């Protein structure tokens, strides 16, 4: 608790400091390559025959995903707090890479916790982390995936809390993390809002984003929350199908519980034990979801849908062939939902999709699924 109190205090101060905000904005621009384009997907729109589809291109950020918005913000905070060592958990590896990246940029020691199962399916990212100078700790406890990596990172943090900053990758974890990560990722929605007003002279009708922990979705949605006419759709991982139980849809398939320090929808069994999840997208393979998204869902502000592994693979192929963009498996879930949604909407309507990352890291997985050896 004292570590969290210290963090909360430090963040509250930083948030109010114009120099901190300026440094963050500067890093986002100079290092991460922001602002990302809000790209009008002309052929995708045409093929689906409905609403105008814009893609918010987080895949064009440095490191290939939205994760860096958060790691930059948090590492600046860590430096401000005088911490010398950064630890992080990672599922798909994108957050691990984004953390190792900023640790290298700012010269801090870095250790990334990753479940054994994830290490196997994301070996490209594991190599990248090592190349960036980070240590990768393989976690063999529990189900050997993201939630177990998070457990191990938390254990490390309570042990080395004095010199260590725990850089959580999503809007999960104890307060103030969900709030901090949301704030840092809000750059996505803030930019998109300005961009769409400039391009179309009005706000969008729908926002769509994939939901694992929820950072890219809340980042896109949050700046629009008070724009009541803007509808929001979060897309979870249905894995092999919601009815099979082999999925990672915490909101659609979970119940309220407490995991990793926050109260939210959690996938759990009848004994309150946390369930093992499945998704072809390692970054969505988490049995929880950010508490703010759960709250917005309960209030009716955000709706939820899901896409299966198969639908995500189809979406990757479709977007690649139609727009020349290969999305990450995670982002492909949002594309899959848009493929269903857009045709039902009028041509004058506008949909913005959060394209949270690019798919290079997933080519082996996609190849395996399609029976192709790379």
């Amino acid at each position, binding site marked *: 608790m*004292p570590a969290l109190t210290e963090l909360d205090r430090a963040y509250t101060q930083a948030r109010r400091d114009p120099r901190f905000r300026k440094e963050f904005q500067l890093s986002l621009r100079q290092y991460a390559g922001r602002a990302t384009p809000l790209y009008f997907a002309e052929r995708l729109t045409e093929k689906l025959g409905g609403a105008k589809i814009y893609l918010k291109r987080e895949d064009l950020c440095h490191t290939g995903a939205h994760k860096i918005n958060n790691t930059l913000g948090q590492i600046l905070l860590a430096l401000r707090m005088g911490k010398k060592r950064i630890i992080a958990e990672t599922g798909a590896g994108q957050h691990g890479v984004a953390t190792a990246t900023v640790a290298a940029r700012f010269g801090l020691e870095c250790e990334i916790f990753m479940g054994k199962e994830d290490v196997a399916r994301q070996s490209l990212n594991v190599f990248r982390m090592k190349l960036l100078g980070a240590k990768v700790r393989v976690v063999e406890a529990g189900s050997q995936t993201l939630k177990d990596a998070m457990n191990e990172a*938390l254990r490390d943090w309570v042990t080395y809390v004095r010199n260590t900053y725990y850089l959580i990758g999503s809007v999960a974890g104890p307060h103030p993390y969900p709030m901090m990560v949301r704030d840092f990722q809000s750059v996505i929605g803030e930019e998109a809002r300005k961009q769409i007003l400039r391009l179309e002279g009005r706000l969008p009708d729908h926002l769509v984003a994939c939901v694992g922990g929820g950072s890219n979705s809340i980042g896109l949605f949050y700046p629009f929350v008070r724009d009541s006419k803007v509808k929001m759709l979060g897309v979870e991982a249905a894995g092999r199908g919601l009815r099979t139980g082999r999925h990672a849809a915490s909101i659609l398939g979970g119940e309220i519980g407490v*995991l990793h320090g926050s109260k939210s929808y959690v996938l759990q069994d009848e004994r*309150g*034990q946390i369930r093992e999840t499945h998704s072809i997208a390692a970054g969505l393979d988490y049995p929880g979801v950010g508490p703010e998204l759960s709250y917005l869902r309960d209030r009716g502000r955000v709706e939820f849908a899901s896409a299966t592994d198969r639908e995500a693979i189809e979406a990757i192929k479709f977007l690649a062939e139609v727009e020349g963009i290969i999305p990450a498996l995670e982002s492909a879930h949002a594309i899959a939902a848009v493929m269903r949604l857009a045709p039902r909407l009028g041509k004058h309507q506008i949909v913005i999709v959060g394209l949270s990352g690019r798919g290079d890291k997933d080519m082996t997985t996609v190849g395996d699924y399609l029976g192709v050896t790379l």
Partner: protein
Amino acid sequence: MGSIKKKFAELKRRGEAALIPFVTAGDPNLATTLKILQAVEKGGADCIELGIPFSDPTADGPTIQRSSERALRNGLSVPRIFQLVRSFRRTSEVPIVLFGYFNPIFHYGLENFCRGAARAGADGILCVDLPPEESAELKRWTDAKGLDLIFLLSPTSGPDRVRLVAGRGRGFIYYVSVTGVTGARQALDNRLRSQVTRIRQATSLPVGVGFGISTPKQAAWIAGFADAAVVGSALVERIEKAKGRAAKARRAGAFVADLKRAMKQVIKKS
């Protein structure tokens, strides 16, 4: 009800510190746990912490992680743990603290859990990932059902936190000896004595120390300045290594007896 308080008062009169062994419910199965509990009581346990296994035990090191995984594989559930406590209660009056994580308790229903725990004969609850700031709902039910809700303090707890816990706690305060997770350790921190003394000055509640205590010598040292020594992983490890129900119970009982014997040599004046 109030039996934890009574036990500590009794021990205090004798100048003794309490030995509180931790046992995981259901590792490897509930029938064995019952035998272990009986052996541990016979060995001299003054109070017993009964662990409710959780799939994501963030505060635990590998020994108790493995222990929880084994227990969960055998279809363990809260009702069956209550049943275990009831069975143990047929022949025992040793105070029992249910030690666990919040989600399984929350999922079961806070009121239902506290009612069930009290009816089964448990005396206290320690929810390791529930900070006092978030404990109001649970405390409402533990108070209503006559259970002690036990809180944690650690080396990073400042004076405000000590005051908060001293005010809200019941039964005893559990002082976590390390910034870290559970697990037997070769050496305990020398600063423990001064840390615990500082806390004892701020509260009238007994202060027990846990995490890392693994030998009779360490337990005796703790007994010199704290009101209780909690021994978890070291006991769980010995149970893990022994093969078969009888051997596990025997090993557990013998280890607890060694710990108690060493602690009894230390008589405190305060």
